[in-house]
């Protein structure tokens, strides 16, 4: 079962729950699933544009990045640069 792991501000937003089992097999499905399992986070992904780290690999705005059977998924802010 793939896992969504929350740290920092996101964990607080989710009332301290740090880990969710998720069914989603890509980021697109994750956004849909988040609305059910942790509705407070869904707007963040949609509006503030969080990036998703799947097994350490960072995907920014990539809806169909695959989430594996046992993947570890993190939400992080989008990263820019100079």
């Amino acid at each position, binding site marked *: 079962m793939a896992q969504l*792991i929350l*740290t*920092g*501000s996101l964990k*607080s*937003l989710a009332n301290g729950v740090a880990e969710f089992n998720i069914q989603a097999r890509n980021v697109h499905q994750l956004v849909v699933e988040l609305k059910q399992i942790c509705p407070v986070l869904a707007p963040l992904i949609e*509006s*503030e*544009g969080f990036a998703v*780290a799947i*097994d*350490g*690999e*960072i*995907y*920014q*705005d*990539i809806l169909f*990045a695959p989430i594996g059977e046992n993947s*570890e998924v*993190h*939400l*992080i*802010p*989008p*990263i*820019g*640069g*100079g």
Partner: protein
Amino acid sequence: MNDMTQNNLERALKIVGTRPPRPDGVDKVTGRALFGSDKSLPNMLVGRVLRSPYAHAKIISIDTSKAEVLNGVKSIVTCADFEDFPSEFVPNGEMIVNLKDITRNIMAREKVLYVGHTVAAVAATSEDIAEKALGLIDIKYEVLPHVLEVEDAEKPDAPVLHEDMMTIGIEPSPKKASNVAKRVEFGFGDVEKGFAEADLIVEREFTTQQVHQGYIEPHACLASVSEDGQADLWCTTQGAFVVRNFCSKLLGLSAAQIKVTASEIGGGFGGKTVVYLEPLALALSRKSGRPVKMEMSRAEVFTSSGPTSGAKVWVKIGVKNDGRIIAGDCVLKYQAGAFQGAPVGPGAMCAFAPYDMVNVRAVGYDIVVNRPKVSAYRAPGGPISEYGVESVLDEIALKLEMDPIEIRLKNAAKEGTIAPYGPKLGPIGMIETLEAAKAHPHYSAPLGPNQGRGIASGFWFNIGGETSSSITINEDGTVGLTLGTTDIGGSRASMAMMASEELGVPMDLIKPVIGDTNSLGFNFLTGGSRATFSTGMTVVRSTREAIEELKKRAALLWEVDLNQVEWVDGHARLIAGDEPKTMSLAQIAKQAGKTGGPIMANCSMNVTGAGPSLGTHIVDVEVDTETGKVSIVRYTAIQDAGKAIHPAYVEGQMQGGAVQGIGWALNEEYIYNDKGELENTGFLDYRIPVCSDVPMIDTVIVEVPNPNHPYGVRGVGETPIIPPLAAISNAVSRATNIRFNELPLSPPKVLAKLMHG
């Protein structure tokens, strides 16, 4: 078909890793290269900007009637000429932006929020007339109290810049507006428990001042909007497509109506990633029906573009006696300038990222003040937070009597380490740069009197992002590359080198050009150290596709199956058969018309898989204890580049970043008076390093390949500005036996500390 993702990490390379001359070299050394202000059009007007004299004031009225009737004035724009937007974060290309803020930053609406904030713009037949017209615009202000520093801005009775700004990220949500836009937190574990188990804890506060990217070319653009609404924009920018998208929203034009051509760019470092003059010039041109050229003066660049944050940083680190970090905690308060958006998120994410942490927390606050809205500056946010962490780590090393490299090695992040912002890191070169630093002769060289040696490391994520480029095989066997990312520091050379390596033809047959926004799909800007990585990725893939096509044509001519043809050293070669048969790229190209038409390929993708770049710097300083003046005696920058495509330009990034960091550490700072006016608006008193301030910057390129790139590339541009701040501060502290915790380390500040502690 060739595997598009196949990497060349094990392959012997002929071109990649060498130092050929850059394709645009001759233009740049002869004065031919056209930068932002170098282009003119017939019938062109000159645009000028009227700026706020106040740090914080309500705009009561704007009367342009006198200016409008001045002979030679052709158009005047104010906020009435731009769309307004609700406060919401929307994607703009890859950036998430709040258009309500952006439209107010390019042209003040209800209030002015910093000295230099744009309030009106004029286009006239001459500079002189435009300046006169500015003087005739009558603006009535109601001056409000202003606030410049984060510690003042967060006080309950502070003047509030935005009456609707409620702090995000605090539970319960505040009911009252404040200057704190956002609170973010990253980390894991239990820091309190960690500190309880620590044998030694060091806790310090640090201050850094607002600094500017200091690109030598001021912002400049030339806009021409025709009567049918078609807009041509020439400007100096890190991202033509990003400019197009900003301008289309602000002016209510479609993307197809605006063609943006990026000029050669005279430095950006993150400062040319947003728009200032461009929408004004377009609006002035649209209104006047004539081309409008605008340039910022150097003073305007300082007062009214986008420097980076000054900040307050608190860091606490607990270690075991053996030097192992057991807990790390930090609070970062960054100035955002007049609108929210300080780079405190990335600052918090990378504060402890060079290390393998067990208990870690990084809290950041994004705080608005009456200064220009900050923009990106090389590793935005990173230098500030890592300065604090690397300084405390140095103090801990001294207290434990440990070598500063050893304590970093003991805690170094490596493949599999969980980053403080959550995910596991892939292969990274932290240990490798530290080992290289330890082995470098600089590290064991003797020091003279009043000298000290400082060490610091730095981490930056790097990014990929939307990228598109194309390749054409010309009939004579030469090759064209069309690229969509601005070339700031030699990327055309790297792109041509990768194409040359893939094709097996000499680099001088390959001509790379930077396309305008009509020639390619969307390209995110040159920034975040992404150009060589991302554009390089698309170039490699499109080149491989072109090679497939070349092989196909050869197969047709030889009347064999495609799988009978391989590509070797610029030639199609028949694999089977009695005698070796080859056909050169030029021979195939010559017959392209007869074998199916012109050969070209393109690649568009949203690139992922950027690999973080780690760096470690060694610096020796000498302190004049009677005057407080710090001199840089020796400097060595070591960094993991993944793979250096053109090592000279990788070294150049490391050297340039190091010297910008030296400036940040020693003398650069925004100095405001009590009216909120910037006092040092020129290069005379905003003191970027000059040639005689610095020694040679030795470099060591470490190569821990990024497995996600065909050549192993990591971005290198951002990381080198991170270590210098702490490395220099640590060196000064070690030279004087006094801990310094404030930047810049300018002579008066250093002497005051030497005299009074």
